[in-house]
């Protein structure tokens, strides 16, 4: 197969891969832990809503929480057992916060919810039905952000998709889970991609793989050949971080730029991770929800770096234990790779649908606590930024809390790849400033909305008070007039007297009202 | 009475036109290459402030809003022209040295600002006192900056006092640093800017030492009780 030309992107870094250390062993399933801690939010969007109660028995694959809204994802029991608690537990998140989780006491029986043979050939199903299966399976993007896959597979009427990009780049150092998946299950990846192609109605599939993974590329090419699909291409892209970034990969493969503030679908492309593709295939053929994934356990801090197939909800400690446990070197536990991953303070945190790697870093593999010097505006970050931003200006304005300017400099085009911070000679934690600025801007947005609502309510209240006062006055006036009418019917002599009396009582009434209001 | 003291403190320090409001900067920087020049222009400005404060306050009831500004401008311009004529007659040398900056007192934002913010809302005595205090505060800065620059630039103080005082000022020149080589930058434009920057920083230091930061609110007669 001829290899199509790639279209290089600006910036990026050539990094040392450290991939070999974790690809020596084949992927094996991890042990079933005693307790699974399944977070309700493992995706972008609204957290799922529990549909089980504490004490309830659940079966493997049974939905235990349903999506709340369209952009949300279902959560399933990764194994059979009893619901022990529904409460806040530490989750893998940079904040280190606890979030609502369903804790399942496993029974070791691994009993499935159903094992019938209602497994129709997916080729007979229409796109709608296929997408519904993906949704029911609670599949979210496994390459990064965890965006619900069924949403991405529904680009909307106006946006015809011509190309499906399968992201097998795996550009971050140390991580090898996609590599191992593609080596070992290439046909599943290819078939999963074809399912999505069908859902999207895409003309072609481009599979991008970094040049440092020849085995995976071979396996995939073989699978494509075996499937006889001539609309699929496996493309080798240079090993230059972050070639796996959605926008970068699409540019590499198609030469198209995803518009800023836009989606790939705007230019007729959808990009899915290779593992997502495999999960989609399982969902439509085996009716199996997303309850496990391959996780790379690596770094100088573990004794036997390797890849494991791990149930969602398994605590990190259990996973690391099965990679030979910690070595003396272990200083930092990073979820994800060294460029984008975040460090967690302890290992009592569960694996989620988006945890692709546990990097237990040794002392020499990571930078000790950053001790930044001021930015000297050297421009190294500008050269490195794949989004063609001016990281130092973003930093400067984020630091000054000038949130208007920072957006003028396109803060929201930053993909937080970390290239800028990696090359900064002053060791400034640049990306932290961008995350800070982004979250402040979002918070301000929320506050503004809240303020607008408060103002509307305040104005409504003032209007209500005003209206009530007006009504009260109208009532009084009406009463006075009624009194006058009645008097008119009386004798002419009594008239004047009656009117005087009515007026007196009316004003007394008014005075009483004013009194109560003033208090 | 604390009200009077308040007005004085505002003008002389807390809301000083030169250091805090940053108004009237042009003359402040342009003529302060020596103490005498600074003093001369400061006094002229003070006179203008007092007279315009008085007039504006006196006519404040008469003026319609749409021509308020032009009337104030007119009052100030007439005052300045009279002062200019007087200076040209009796302090001709100083008049020559200060040059265009005497007529430019008209556009000294500090004067217009006071007319707008204070004199047009307050009775005559308060307006006059405010004008005087603002003027003296301004003069103080002019003299301080003049002294700083003259000293750093030439090592002297009160050079050319005769411009202001006539023959009386002849011998007043003080040679503070004997045999000083002169540091020209101080008397050139950069020295003016940097010198004022240093004075403001000095004021900040003093204010912090005294435990409160200056408040740059435009003061009005009411509200703003003595802090």
């Amino acid at each position, binding site marked *: 197969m001829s290899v199509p030309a790639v279209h290089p992107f600006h910036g990026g870094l050539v990094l040392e891969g450290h991939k070999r250390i974790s690809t020596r062993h084949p992927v094996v399933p991890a042990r079933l832990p005693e307790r699974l801690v399944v977070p309700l939010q493992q995706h972008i969007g609204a957290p799922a809503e529990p549909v089980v109660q504490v004490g309830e028995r659940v079966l493997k694959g049974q939905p235990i929480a349903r999506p709340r809204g369209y952009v949300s994802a279902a959560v399933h029991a990764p194994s059979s057992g009893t619901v022990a608690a529904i409460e806040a537990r530490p989750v893998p998140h940079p904040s280190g916060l606890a979030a609502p989780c369903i804790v399942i006491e496993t029974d070791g029986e691994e009993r499935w919810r159903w094992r019938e043979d209602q497994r129709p050939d997916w080729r007979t199903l229409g796109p709608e039905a296929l997408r519904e299966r993906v949704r029911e399976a609670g599949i979210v993007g496994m390459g990064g952000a965890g965006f619900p896959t069924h949403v991405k597979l529904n680009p909307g009427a106006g946006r015809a998709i011509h190309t499906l990009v399968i992201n097998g780049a795996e550009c971050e150092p140390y991580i090898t889970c996609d590599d191992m998946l593609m080596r070992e299950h290439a046909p599943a990846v290819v078939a999963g991609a074809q399912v999505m192609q069908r859902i999207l109605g895409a003309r072609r599939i481009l599979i991008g793989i970094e040049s440092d993974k020849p085995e995976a590329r071979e396996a995939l090419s073989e699978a494509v050949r075996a499937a006889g699909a001539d609309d699929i291409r496996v493309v080798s892209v240079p090993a230059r971080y972050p070639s796996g970034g959605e926008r970068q990969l699409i540019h590499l493969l198609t030469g198209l730029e995803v518009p800023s503030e836009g989606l790939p679908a705007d230019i007729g492309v959808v990009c899915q991770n290779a593992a997502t593709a495999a999960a989609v295939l399982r969902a439509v053929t085996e009716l199996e929800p997303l309850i496990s994934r391959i996780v790379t356990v690596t770094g100088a801090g573990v004794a036997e770096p390797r890849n494991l197939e791990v149930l969602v909800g398994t605590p990190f400690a259990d996973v690391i234990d099965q990679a030979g446990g910690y070595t003396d070197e272990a200083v930092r536990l990073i979820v994800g790779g060294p460029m984008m991953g*975040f*460090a967690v303070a302890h290992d009592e945190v569960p694996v989620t649908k988006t945890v692709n790697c546990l990097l237990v*870093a040794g002392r*020499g593999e*990571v930078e000790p606590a950053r001790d930044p010097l*001021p930015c*000297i505006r050297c*421009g190294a970050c500008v050269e490195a930024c794949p989004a063609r931003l001016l990281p130092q200006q973003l930093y400067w304005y984020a630091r000054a809390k000038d949130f208007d300017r920072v957006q003028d400099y396109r803060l929201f085009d930053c993909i937080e790849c970390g290239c800028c911070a990696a*090359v900064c000679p002053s060791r400034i934690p640049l*990306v932290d400033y961008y995350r800070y600025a982004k979250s402040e801007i979002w918070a301000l947005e929320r506050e503004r909305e809240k303020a607008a609502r408060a103002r509307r309510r305040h104005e409504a209240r003032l209007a209500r008070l005003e209206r009530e006062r007006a009504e009260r006055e109208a009532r009084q006036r009406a009463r006075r007039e009624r009194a006058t009418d009645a008097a008119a019917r009386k004798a002419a002599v009594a008239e004047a007297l009656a009117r005087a009396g009515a007026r007196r009582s009316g004003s007394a009434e008014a005075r009483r009202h004013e009194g109560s209001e003033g208090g | 009475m604390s009200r009077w003291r308040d007005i004085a403190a505002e003008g002389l320090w807390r809301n000083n036109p030169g250091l805090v409001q940053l108004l009237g900067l042009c003359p402040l920087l342009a003529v302060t290459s020596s103490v005498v020049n600074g003093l001369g222009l400061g006094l002229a400005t003070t006179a203008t402030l007092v007279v315009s404060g008085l007039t504006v306050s006196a006519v404040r009831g008469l003026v319609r809003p749409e021509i308020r500004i032009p009337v104030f401008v007119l009052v100030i311009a007439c005052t300045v022209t009279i002062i200019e004529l007087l200076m040209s007659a009796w302090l001709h040398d100083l008049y020559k040295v200060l040059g265009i900056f005497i007529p430019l007192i008209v556009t000294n934002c500090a004067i217009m600002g006071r007319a707008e913010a204070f004199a047009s809302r307050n009775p005559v005595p308060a307006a006059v006192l405010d004008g005087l205090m603002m003027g003296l505060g301004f003069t103080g800065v002019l003299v301080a900056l003049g002294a700083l620059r003259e000293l750093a630039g030439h090592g002297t103080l009160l050079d050319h006092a005769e411009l202001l005082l006539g023959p009386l000022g002849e011998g007043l020149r003080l040679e503070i640093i004997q045999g000083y080589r002169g540091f020209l930058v101080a008397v050139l434009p950069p020295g003016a800017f940097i010198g004022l920057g240093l004075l403001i920083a000095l004021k900040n230091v003093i204010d912090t030492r005294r435990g409160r930061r200056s408040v740059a609110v435009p003061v009005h007669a009411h509200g703003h009780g003595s802090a």
Partner: protein
Amino acid sequence: MRRFETATSPHLPPRDSVPALMRRVLYALAPGAALQAWHFGWGVVVQLLLAAALALAAEAAVLVLRRRPARRALADGSVLVTAALLALALPPYAPWWLTTVAVLSAVVLAKHLYGGLGYNPFNPAMVGYVVALIAFPRELTQWPAPHALAAPPGLDMALGLIFGGAQLPDALTAATPLDHVRTGLAMNRTLTELGAEPVMGRFGGKGWEWVAGGYLAGGLWLAWRRAIDWRIPSAFAAGLALPAMVAWGLDPDGHPSPLFHLLSGGAMLGAFFIATDPVTAATTPRGRLLYGAGAGLLTFLIRTFGGYPDGVAFAVLLMNMAAPTLDQLTRPRAFGEGR
């Protein structure tokens, strides 16, 4: 439960550091500085040491006053670069108090009033130089004759000149090539006549052209090591040489050649070491081209029409002033941003 240190991404160990960068700049200055010392004598060395000591002391004093940890800031080496560039720009036998005023202006006024490394909008060394030039123009015109014309003063004489208040004897001074050409042209002499005089060398001034060559070599090494952005020196050279070429082409007897412009005065030092100060230069790629070109052009204009024989310092300061605006005007199109 095992506990771990927390930190944010990226986690990779550092690739480069500011002190290393500053060290590289100092190494790159060495050949030019050595040639300058060879041609103009011990004064160059004494000035370098004096300026370095004063600069370190001034920086330490400010940091102590501000109650900031002094060790690390001093160790970043940036103040040594400032001191070195300033010392190389001043006449080698300038009296000590002049060097002191210049260094204090550079380090305290231009750098630390803004918060120190990275925050100063103006090039500290050039601020120091210009303050000295404006305050003490007489001393700033006293350049010694290069080696080729008169044996430069020895170490003891250098110390006497710098610290003892002695004046450089007339026999040992010579107009700098730029000054020579400028005053000569002002007296309606032609360049052919002027070029024949002893101070003039093959391309620039005698001795001066060698020094410029030294800086060129060091600068090229810096660019090759990517310590500086090639855009700035290239654009600077173009901005200076192109108008010089035009003027020279039109009137070869009234305007010196582009090569003379490039190899005299502060042009090479300016192009590779001064205009490239990352802190005060523009930071966008296109901005740097404009910044360099502007500095070169202004240098030419000031040399040709202005009141000062060399315009590099002013040109750099003027472009410093424009750098933030250039940065705003030349923001690159972000990935995916509409054209």
